[in-house]
């Protein structure tokens, strides 16, 4: 597949029939909650869209997102997208390595300056540039450098979107999410800045570079393809929620779409993982399910091509697409329960209260006893005030 083929040509080269292609566009339209009338429009756009150049930078991450997004058993939608895009740089997947790999990245940036998509997974440690580097270049500088020419940045996974596990308390590396990093360091000059090589003439302030957060640990594969398809079709970002996540996938909470919701409403809960309730598929709220406060498409799109999702397999949702979900006070404790041991506190407080109460009570008693002791008899003549004429 040559670089300058259009997506349509690339798909036909792989033997995908016109009908198969239209079926793909319809599926993408429905995924993106777009009206059916948009299908021909998507098909026409994808037909002639040049295969986008995608640079994938992996910083402080566990490669779980890559693993999830590239896993494909049968020719799935993700597969078609990945094969239709030109993934110019992905240091886990690309064959090249060392300086050759870096050369590829630089040439891709130069050739598609301003048009390529930058996908980031993993958080950026700002504590010390040395914590995480690629080919000797710190993640901070590489991001600043690559972001300059990017049309948009897709932060894949909760680490890139919100900081994820590196960001979890105590956050030793001072990890930052992409958005947080750009806000803080966006206007800085990368140390690796060289004027001519990459065709950049002067430093580009990347603070307000558009970022789409595709949170989740890992995120659902189809979400990335949906976002790419949307970007290729409309040339701009899909509608985002307050945390920069595509509304189409993160608009509704798991709880709202959970098939076990009727049990929650009726108050039928599993109290332990193997009790009668769990076997009957009752609500897992009591086992720490974070469904009510987690926004993602797991309950509808589900995982592994619609096979299942955590709750369906009997495990409470961890809330992995939400910020700070690692610090949520325990996966098996509901979000609304106290984190500390209230009972112990209450018991100590009762003790302290009782002690203080008894002391103050004794004070009351002695004061009143003194009053009664110093009681001066009220005789018949003591009922008029002294001055009363």
């Amino acid at each position, binding site marked *: 597949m040559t670089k300058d083929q259009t997506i349509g040509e690339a798909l036909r080269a792989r033997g995908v029939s016109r009908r198969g292609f239209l079926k793909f566009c319809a599926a993408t339209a429905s995924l993106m909650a777009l009206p059916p009338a948009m299908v021909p429009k998507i098909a026409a756009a994808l037909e002639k869209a040049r295969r986008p150049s995608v640079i994938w930078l992996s910083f402080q991450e566990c490669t779980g997102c890559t693993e999830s997004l590239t896993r494909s058993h049968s020719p799935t939608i993700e597969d078609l997208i990945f094969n239709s895009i030109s993934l110019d740089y992905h240091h886990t997947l690309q064959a090249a390595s060392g300086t050759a790999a870096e050369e590829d990245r630089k040439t891709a940036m130069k050739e598609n300056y301003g048009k390529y998509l930058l996908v980031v997974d993993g958080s950026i440690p700002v504590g010390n540039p040395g914590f995480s580097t690629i080919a000797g270049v710190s993640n901070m500088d590489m991001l600043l450098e690559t972001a300059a020419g990017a049309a948009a940045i897709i932060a894949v996974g909760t680490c890139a979107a919100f900081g994820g596990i590196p960001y979890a308390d105590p956050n030793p590396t001072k990890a930052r999410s992409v958005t947080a990093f750009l806000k803080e360091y966006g206007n800085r000059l990368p140390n690796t800045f060289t004027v001519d090589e990459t065709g950049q003439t002067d430093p580009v302030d990347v603070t307000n570079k558009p970022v789409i957060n595709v949170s989740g640990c890992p995120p659902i594969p189809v979400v990335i393809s949906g976002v790419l398809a949307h970007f290729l079709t409309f040339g701009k970002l899909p509608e985002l929620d307050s945390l920069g996540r595509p509304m189409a996938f993160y608009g509704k*909470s798991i709880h709202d779409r959970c098939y076990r919701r009727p049990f929650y409403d009726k108050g039928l809960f599993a109290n332990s993982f193997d009790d009668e309730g769990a076997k009957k598929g009752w609500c897992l709220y009591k086992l720490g399910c974070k469904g009510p406060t987690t926004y993602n498409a797991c309950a509808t799109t589900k995982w592994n091509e619609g096979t299942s999702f955590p709750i369906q397999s009997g495990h409470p949702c961890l809330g992995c697409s939400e910020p700070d979900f690692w*610090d949520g006070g325990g996966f098996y404790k509901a979000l609304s*329960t106290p984190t500390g041991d209230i009972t112990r506190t209450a018991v100590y407080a009762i003790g302290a209260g009782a002690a203080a109460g008894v002391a103050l009570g004794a004070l009351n008693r002695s004061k009143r006893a003194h009053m009664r002791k110093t009681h001066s008899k009220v005789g018949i003549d003591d009922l008029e005030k002294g001055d009363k004429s």
Partner: protein
Amino acid sequence: MTPAELLMWVRGPALQFATVVFVVGVAVRILEILLLGRKPDLAEARGSEVIGGLRTIISRSIPDRGTLQRSSFNVVAGYIFHAGFFLALFFFAPHILLLHDVFGVYWPSLPTQFIDALTVVSIITLLAVLFHRITHKVMRFLSRPSDYVAWLLTILPLITGYLAFHRVGLAPPLLMALHIGSVELLMIVFPFTKLMHAFTLFLGRYYNGAIAGRRGVNA
């Protein structure tokens, strides 16, 4: 302070603080009362003080016909928002979970839609109660600032609870934090206001019933 961090703070240290203030406060107030004691009654008893006292704790919940006629709003509205508040507190599933965490006991919960509707009714009733306190000449005359504070602290958990349940308006963790925070506010101010009646009314009714019971009168 992101909503999630606020929620963690509210579920953690703030809740500890509120629990301490609440428990110590209530314990002190009750002991301050009890240790003042009551002189033994030397008059020959006609009826039993204990039976009279215990009986009144229950019977005083049923208003006599005259009171029901003359203050029907107080009685009806009072029952509605108290019932709504307690049913939501003790029979809403997540609350039972919370109470289990503290007291280690489970009991069946009521359907959430029922609790939800009940909460709305209670909120509306509490607003009506406020209107009544402001417009009824006796209640306005008697009311002190602490009455309005207590009213506010009673309605806030219901409103924030409703919003947190429906996750409308703000981010869910923030709504949850506001709800738990409003309960903590209620707990902290509780021992310093008339909310103490939740505990002292049993003692008060017992004394009333006992004093009358000794004389053979069902108070």
